């Protein structure tokens, strides 16, 4: 099996790619918790003027009826007016697309953005909704029965790992 791409390098690569699309109206929102870690890196690398927003779409998920409330929902903090902004929505791994749908629904309860582009560190097969990333660091093949997760160690270094469990 091919080695997993290095998360730190993917962050640098995404930052280079995004530099070309940043406008004065560009604002960034990271999805808890992996997406927030990536967004912190990108936000700093791009030196965006508008402060970083963090989102936990736990209250918008479509699996509440099946699984109940997420274990540890975090407080969403969007410290800017969403109205009219060009949003870069950042997550760690794009898989089914359900988290992104929930996050977009939540964002619209803050206002009407001019646009939303999805930025992910890695994407994998398994989409269940018509969602695609405008900026993806890498495409990763994930064996059946495993999941791709972003980890952050004590020094704050990011790495992608495969875990058992769908």
């Amino acid at each position, binding site marked *: 099996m091919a080695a997993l791409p290095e998360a730190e390098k993917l962050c640098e690569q995404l930052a280079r790619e995004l530099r070309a699309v940043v406008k004065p109206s560009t604002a960034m929102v990271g999805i808890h918790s992996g997406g927030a870690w990536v967004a912190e890196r990108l936000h700093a690398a791009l030196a965006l003027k508008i402060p970083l927003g963090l989102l936990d779409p736990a209250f918008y998920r479509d699996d509440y009826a099946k699984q109940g*409330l997420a274990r540890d929902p975090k407080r969403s903090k969007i410290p800017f007016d969403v109205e009219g902004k060009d949003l870069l929505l950042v997550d760690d791994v794009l898989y089914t697309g359900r988290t992104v749908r929930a996050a977009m629904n939540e964002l619209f309860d*803050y206002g009407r953005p001019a646009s939303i582009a999805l930025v992910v560190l890695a994407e994998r097969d398994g989409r269940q909704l018509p969602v695609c990333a405008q900026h993806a660091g890498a495409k990763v093949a994930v064996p059946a029965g495993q999941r791709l997760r972003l980890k952050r160690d004590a020094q704050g270094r990011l790495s992608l790992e495969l875990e058992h469990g769908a």
Partner: protein
Amino acid sequence: MARNPQLNGNGELQHLLSIEGLPREILLKILDTAESFAGVTERDIKKVPLLRGKSVFNLFFEGSTRTRTTFEIAAKRLSADVINLNVAVSSTAKGESLLDTVANLSAMQADIFVVRHGSSGAPYLVARHVKPHEHVINAGDGRHAHPTQGLLDLYTIRHYKKEFGGLTVAIVGDVLHSRVARSLIHGLTTLGVPEVRVIGPQTLIPAGAAALGVRVFHSMREGLKGADVVVMLRLQNERMSGALLPSAQEFNKHYGLSADKLALAKPDAIVMHPGPMNRGVEIDSSVADGPHSVILPQVTFGISVRMAVMSMIAGA
């Protein structure tokens, strides 16, 4: 040992009947979840779609404005449908039993029953008879418990004091009749508050108070010394029978919270009251409206706490 009627087989919250018997992890999860909902209540659109399609029945066999209203707001902010029943003046007055009322509402496809009742234990009775997908929240039963009030008190204390360890909390007044005090005491001891005090005249302190893990004081000046948190209780005239007190004026003189008595607590002490307040009886206006008072923030926090409880039980 009998299974805790509030938890399901997976140890998740199924009903909220009492803080007593709830593990520390569940209490903390409710407070953490409420903290996330506080973010929702600060937005322009104060609504999330979590309980869309669910029905919440507010079943109040006893009067209430604040509690009923905040449950209603909480349910609506979760996108649930809310039905308010003033049962005291309808079915019950016509002779229908509590369980028949509940069975009828269940036939109308209820998901959550919010029950307030003058008899201790009534919400337990309801919880024993509802269907597996139906959930019960105790909104105050007799002198027994008022768990969502206790939880919002805990939330308020954590909001202002950050940690529970190291705190001295003084609960003052009519402890005997207070379901609020009972719920709060269980919560404080479960979360590791080292010093919980109750202060009041002998006639208004329950005989077994010390067994709850609290220190009993009959002098305000002794009991308030060094307190971080002062919780004033309402003098419950409607629950008193017999001569427990000489008069409201006499009570105010000894146990009413005035600015000079409050000066004995820590300089950054917070003052709480579950409402409704009897100004000039258990609390002076100068304190109720003063810089130490967090009585109105308590009401706001109550909405997020009730959103957290409803979303946790309905998803269990």
